């Protein structure tokens, strides 16, 4: 079975985000990592491959600077990688690029993260599925494959939904789908020699652009209430904050 995992590169979760004159992310000193949800998707693909046989390919749209992130995915256990050499500026563009590759070289299972933690959009899975005319299930916490039967669990408000699906399919990973693995020494060594294919982008359209950035409005200073004055806190929440 052929697995494809789409990975993006994002600032580490502990990064203090600042912008350069409201026009771009200030990347100075920022450490970039594999998007955590993509790593969850990758780990589940590896588990399924170990159970069912096959190969795990990771695909990434990004410029040469992102190669350490791709090598990390190979160190975790992916068999090979494809880098489409372009700035991932718009989800439609990214999905179109990946779709072009998959049309020439089909996969049985295509996974993404639920969203990337930089733009928090979660668009690529659905777009890719639509472009490839495949079924899609997003924000999933379980993927089991037995023969040609796929069973997934997707998150819904206040619970989970068990969904059955045919192969091939696209799904986006939510926390709980797998426990990420820390690459071991052997993985890190072998990652250096695993195939990393670089392809130039096909001409693609961009439909959106982030034109400016701002910090969220600063919080008012915290109002302290004495630990033995809980009646006062309740009154504040009722009268002032109007939330109860």
């Amino acid at each position, binding site marked *: 079975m052929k697995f494809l995992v789409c990975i993006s590169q994002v600032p580490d979760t502990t990064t203090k985000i600042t912008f350069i004159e409201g026009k771009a992310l200030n990347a100075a000193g920022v450490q970039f990592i594999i998007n955590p949800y993509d790593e969850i998707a990758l780990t589940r693909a590896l588990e399924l491959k170990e159970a069912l046989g096959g190969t795990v390919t990771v695909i990434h749209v990004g410029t040469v600077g992102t190669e350490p992130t791709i090598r990390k995915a190979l160190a975790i256990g992916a068999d090979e990688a494809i880098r489409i050499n372009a700035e991932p500026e718009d989800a439609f563009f990214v999905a179109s690029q990946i779709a072009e590759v998959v049309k020439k070289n089909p996969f049985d299972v295509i996974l993404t993260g639920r969203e990337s933690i930089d733009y928090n959009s979660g668009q690529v899975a*659905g777009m890719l599925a639509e472009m490839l005319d495949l079924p899609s299930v997003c924000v999933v916490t379980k993927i089991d494959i037995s023969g040609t039967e796929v069973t997934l669990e997707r998150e819904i408000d206040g619970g989970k939904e068990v969904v059955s699906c045919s192969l091939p399919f696209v799904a986006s990973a939510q926390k709980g789908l797998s426990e990420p693995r820390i690459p071991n020494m052997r993985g890190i060594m072998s990652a250096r020699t695993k195939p990393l294919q670089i392809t130039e982008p096909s001409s693609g359209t961009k439909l959106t652009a*982030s034109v400016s950035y701002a910090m969220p409005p600063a919080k008012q200073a915290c109002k302290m209430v004495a630990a033995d004055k809980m009646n006062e806190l309740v009154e504040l929440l009722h009268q002032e904050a109007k*939330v*109860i």
Partner: protein
Amino acid sequence: MSVIVFAENWDGKFKKSTFEAVSYANEIAKQLSTSTTALVIGNVSEEDMKSLGKYGAGKVLNVKNDRLNTLAAQAYGNIVAEAAQKEVATVIVISNTYTGKNIAGRIAARLKAGLVAGATALPSATAPFTVRKKCFSGKGLTDVVITSDQKVLALTPNAFRVISGEGTASLEAFVPALKDSDLKTSVKEVKKTSGKIALTEAELVVSAGRGLKGPENWGMIEELANLLGAATACSKPVADIGWRPHHEHVGQTGITIGPNLYIAIGISGAIQHLAGVSSSKVIVVINSDPEAPFFKAADYGVVGDAFEVVPRLIEAVKTFKTSHH
């Protein structure tokens, strides 16, 4: 030209996020001097569908088909796109709920329309069409310009207020082109987290962390939540060690919420935790450590031992409830 809004229902009922989406769509329709059409897929009562007029929908298109009573992302996406074409819609609004997340990308790709997923405000301009959303998990905001003719906006629940007035929508049955191949997924079972208020929809949330010392101490947290009609949540380590179920874990790697009130008890306020809760309208922090970072993100703070403060807070809420009812 028109604005179309996908009015989501749950087992035949609309929720607040549906009314927010219709209100939002109608405000955009006003900006564009056009009208709002709502699309309903499933079995919703005629009365409820007509009532979408209160939030600005002039017309409701209703797709009734027993195969569509549960989500089939491909079919739903196609139907929304087809309805958008039929209504010559330039703007397509959906809620960024779990259903929305399953269909937004599909709709956008099908229409070759730019998508802003997680819009938090009305377009700040319509030419160029510019919409604000959060980025970097709430650590920043970005203004996104959509350059395509059609635009898809997935509105963050709880970010836009419901605007209601008078009005009744007219109803029109809509029979989309549906192929068997659009239904490659099917729902086998729904597992409800029993009886509790769903965290993602809760207006009030009581959350606790490692400061509570052990799972046996959650009785007071649940009591406070029950009294307030709040959902319960927890920090990541608490879910990881199994003190609380995983579906309660909020934060960067858990659920993102934006309730009206978030009460954090014995949670330090790590940046990854804040990423999931910083959209809360009001945050109350109860922590024994006056230096806990969470106080910087709080609106109201109480420095004290949770085991003393929470029982007092429970008593205070009880007193408040008897005097206000």
